[in-house]
């Protein structure tokens, strides 16, 4: 019993009889209801178990909620069973499916990044990579990479952006970026670089066992001077060998080996970190060679020397 407040002064209280005084002296301790015996969850927090087949008053008494007669009363009916008629899945075949080759990327929008910078949770003067975004909980979970999207950019009727979400230049390294996001970041004076990540690489980046963006194929032309300037102080001094030697990383960040990945990061439109490998007039595709290369492979064409009386 919890202590009760004695509000009345002692003179006004009902005088206690001799027996109560005596008992209080004989048994000095009061035996309270133990708290462990009175614990219970709030009645509204849980549902009472339905007790089936326990009489008509229970509401689930006579047929226990299973209706009358038949297979459903007595047991289970196979899933997809159509009463003996050819099942739907046989007539129409299976539908839907999961694309196991899809890359599961965490989306991140520019307005959210700006809000994180305003709150002081991300430093805008340093490169913003998957590590910073995850540590500051700007993205909930870096799945197999990060895709930058341009929400918050206001556009006029001709789809031309009229205002910027970003209040300062930022330098981002992400897996992929939408064209609107790239335009918005570059309009604010910053830069976007897209580079290849794998799931295990991101896990190691989060454990600081791997550099967040410098890999074997990364060189000083991979990203803008702004990104490298913020990281190293001097331009272009950041190479994979130096990073491994001086920063004490255990693992190398992998580069893409799949044709589709290589082609994505060779594309200057995506601001890919391999786009500097393109030769003049060459596209990102690995299938079509550059016109310059095609010419040299075909050999030097012989110039036809025609006699003066011939036109062709």
């Amino acid at each position: 019993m919890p202590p009760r407040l004695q509000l009345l002064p002692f003179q006004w209280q009902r005088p206690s009889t001799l027996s109560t005084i005596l008992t209080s002296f004989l048994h000095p301790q009061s035996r309270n209801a133990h708290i462990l015996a009175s614990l219970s969850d709030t009645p509204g927090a849980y549902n009472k178990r339905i007790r089936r087949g326990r009489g008509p008053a229970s509401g689930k008494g006579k047929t226990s909620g299973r209706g009358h007669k038949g297979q459903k009363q007595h047991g289970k009916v196979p899933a997809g069973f159509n009463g003996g008629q050819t099942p739907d899945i046989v007539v129409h075949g299976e539908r839907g499916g999961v694309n196991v080759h899809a890359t599961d990327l965490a989306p991140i929008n520019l307005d959210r990044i700006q809000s994180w910078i305003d709150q002081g949770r991300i430093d805008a003067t340093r490169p913003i990579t998957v590590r910073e975004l995850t540590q500051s909980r700007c993205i909930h979970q870096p799945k197999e990479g990060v895709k930058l999207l341009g929400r918050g950019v206001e556009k006029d009727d001709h789809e031309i952006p009229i205002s910027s979400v970003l209040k300062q230049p930022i330098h981002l390294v992400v897996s992929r970026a939408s064209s609107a996001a790239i335009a918005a970041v570059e309009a604010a004076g910053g830069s976007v670089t897209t580079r290849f990540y794998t799931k295990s690489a991101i896990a190691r980046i989060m454990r600081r066992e791997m550099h967040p963006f410098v890999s074997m194929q990364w060189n000083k032309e991979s990203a803008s001077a702004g990104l490298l300037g913020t990281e190293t102080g001097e331009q272009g001094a950041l190479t994979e060998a130096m990073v491994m030697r001086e920063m004490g990383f255990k693992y190398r960040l992998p580069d893409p080996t799949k044709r589709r990945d290589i082609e994505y990061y060779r594309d200057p439109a995506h601001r890919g970190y391999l786009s500097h490998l393109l030769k003049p007039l060459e596209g990102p595709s690995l299938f079509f060679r550059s016109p310059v290369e095609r010419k040299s492979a075909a050999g030097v064409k012989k110039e036809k020397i025609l006699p003066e009386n011939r036109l062709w």
Partner: protein
Amino acid sequence: MPGSDAFRALKWLSRSSGGLLSGAETTTQRCLAKPLSRSMATEAQSPIDNLTREVPKPVWNPEPVKATTYSFPSMEPLRFVEYPRNHLLMPLRKDILHRAVVYEGDMTRQGTASTKWRDDVHGSGRKLYAQKGTGRARVGDKKSPIRRGGGVAFGPHPRDFSTGLPQKIYDQAWRIALSYRYKRGQLIIVDNEITLPEDATPHLITEIFKANRWGRPFGRSTLITDQPNESLFETVRQVGEHAKILDRRDVDVKDLLETGRLIIEKQALDRILSQHSKDLKNKPAKALY
């Protein structure tokens, strides 16, 4: 026993900081002070001044909780220590305590009960006798669950009984349990370590319990030390009728609620509270550079 209850209530009220008594005191002071400070001359306040004056924002600045610490064998009061109100003055939530106690109980279940199904029972799968012609009921093998010595149908098998509870709720439960003890005056904080002399017999600890009214007639006590101390633990175990002793790592929420009072080393209390106040630290995550 209304008299003793009232006395305890009075003690409780006067002890808890910011309790009823201290509140009443300040009110009376304010009532007395106001007419005295008023000047005799009537001053006309300009209405503009009233409009532009900044209204002071109400600040809720509750005082921390004060608790007394004692030296162990002599139980002399040594000093006051302060704790935040969300550590030792949490409102009692029986539902949270219930969930924590059930969670701990589920986690403690061994779940090793195991029986043999007919495949696991040792023996042959031979048919006992022919299907037809014997005049007896048809049978399979000896290990059928309907035969004596056969397997057990639907018997228990080893499994994990543990259930989940959000860490924030469990942390709250710890502080609620300690607050419950504190509010009832059943949290006795020992400033130094709880130790006994090397050659101490159980008689000494019995006497300590008798002098302080901690023993069985008063609902037993739980002693909580910061580090395990084998000789002390052994001595206290011999007077287990009156007390039980645990080191900090062994304590559960249920242990805090079980006996009449807690006698806890200050260091153990501080560590328990700091371990179980993670839900109070709600700073947003920041990128580390």
